[in-house]
């Protein structure tokens, strides 16, 4: 059974239809990459899965449960789904360490010492142990995004959503994050990743989904979608990317 099952999803902003009759199934331990033009609705889809938007129609099943059912407890769902955003959403009034320990302590009830211990380990993984007590505003862009990733991972979610997490990272650290995500995958993590990094998509994902016109235009293994796409729109999109020197 799919861990995540999006069925006939529709999401509009006013008269603007962003997602329309959108279907997507993600199996346990699968890593799916969403690609598509800017404004094609990748971020919106991830926000819908994390219940940050109310969908207009359609259903989203997480582990068999219809999470679009309004009687479902959204907080329990969100605590099981981690998300890392495109823009940096660190809490500016807290130290890096407190940013990371907030959810373990306040949602999962982990003790202060253990939460900080786990947070420090996570900071080690993103190479920022020395910045534990720094304020987010004093970090460089790349540093901030790495903290945001650590904050999501420390929550031990069953499904991780990544919204262009590497776009602000300097290339030398992309490798580290990639390795971290590969680790996560081998630990059995299910992941949905919106990205513009085609190389990243190719290396980490089991499946690439191309969004266009509010629904899935093409879906398949990266070797096929990125190298030998069937849909003419995918072909055109990839051509522009290759022209830009990104693949």
């Amino acid at each position, binding site marked *: 059974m799919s861990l995540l099952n999006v069925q006939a999803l529709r999401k509009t902003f006013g*008269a603007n*239809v*962003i997602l329309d009759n959108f279907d997507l199934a993600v199996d346990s331990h699968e890593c799916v990459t969403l690609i598509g033009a800017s*404004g094609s609705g990748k971020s919106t889809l991830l926000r819908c899965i994390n219940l*940050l938007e*109310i969908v*207009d*129609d359609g259903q989203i099943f997480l582990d068999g449960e219809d999470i679009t059912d*309004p009687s479902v407890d959204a907080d329990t769902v969100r605590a099981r789904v981690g998300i890392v955003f495109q823009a940096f959403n660190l809490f500016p009034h807290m130290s890096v360490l407190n940013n990371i320990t907030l959810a373990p302590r306040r949602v999962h009830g982990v003790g202060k010492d253990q939460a900080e211990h786990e947070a420090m380990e996570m900071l080690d993984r993103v190479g920022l142990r020395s910045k534990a007590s720094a304020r987010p505003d004093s970090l460089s862009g790349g540093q901030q995004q790495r903290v945001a990733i650590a904050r999501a991972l420390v929550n031990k979610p069953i499904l991780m959503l990544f919204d262009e997490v590497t776009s602000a990272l300097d290339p030398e650290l992309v490798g580290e994050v990639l390795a971290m995500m590969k680790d996560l995958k081998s630990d059995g993590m299910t992941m949905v990743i919106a990205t513009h990094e085609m190389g990243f998509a190719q290396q980490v994902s089991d499946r690439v989904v191309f969004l266009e*016109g509010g629904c899935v235009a093409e879906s398949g293994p990266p070797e096929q979608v990125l190298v030998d796409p069937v849909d003419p729109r995918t072909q055109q999109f990839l051509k522009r990317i290759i022209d830009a020197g990104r693949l």
Partner: protein
Amino acid sequence: MSPDSHAWSPSKVALSRAAYRRSRARRSLVIAAVITVVVATVTVWGVLNSTGWPRFQKAFLNLSYGKKVFPDILNGLWLNIRLMLLCGVCIVILAMLVALMRNLRGPAFFPLRALATIYTDVFRGVPLILVLLLLGFGVPSLRIDWLPRDPLFWGCASLILVYGAYVSEVFRAGIESVHPSQRAAARSLGLSHGKMMRYVVVPQAVRRVMPPLLNDMVALQKDTGLLYVLGAVAYDAILRAKIATAQTFNYTPYVVAGILFILITIPLTRLTDFIARRQGWVSGGIV
């Protein structure tokens, strides 16, 4: 994005979700209505049956007396409004100047910053009544010929100085809440400090502090009547209510004044809310 012409009819599940949400909203409305009715009934019953109710009603809610004093108090309210507008404009200008002075950077501007800080500290610290007395009675008592003596002038000056200090702190909070990257972006385009403030920082700052700003304007409107202390005899709504009450020992005129004040505050509140919202964040979903 799919074409808008694409016809969409909600699915069964969407309809049932919408129905569920509507029923939840209805339920909470019903609960609220029931609680309101029960609380209101008990309160009203308790009040109406209290020993003192007839006397209370006569003293505070005398309808015919209220009708009688209404035109007089409305007249006074017009004075409150005019004084508020007049002083309000001066206050906003003064307060913005002070807030901008406090926001200057660099050691060269230390004296201006210090001046602005002292002004704020002093005039926010002292009671309005002292400023009124010192300016309204003290300055004319010096008998310096070329200074005006009109108590209304000095009364307005006192209100402007005191409220200016409060409002400047409000503006300062707004200015400091604008992220420094906005300043960097503006300056990098070649805008001078002044133009940066005018076009980028202040518009964002003012919008953010609309509610506390309105707070001060509402408070000002009610304080304009204090000019009375100077013998300026500003017959504002509150003084008129006081006079009427002193004659009849009936507090209904105060209630009339209160209702009138609420009636002019509400549209002001809605308007500033509307402005603030129109220029505010685009809603970030449902959370």
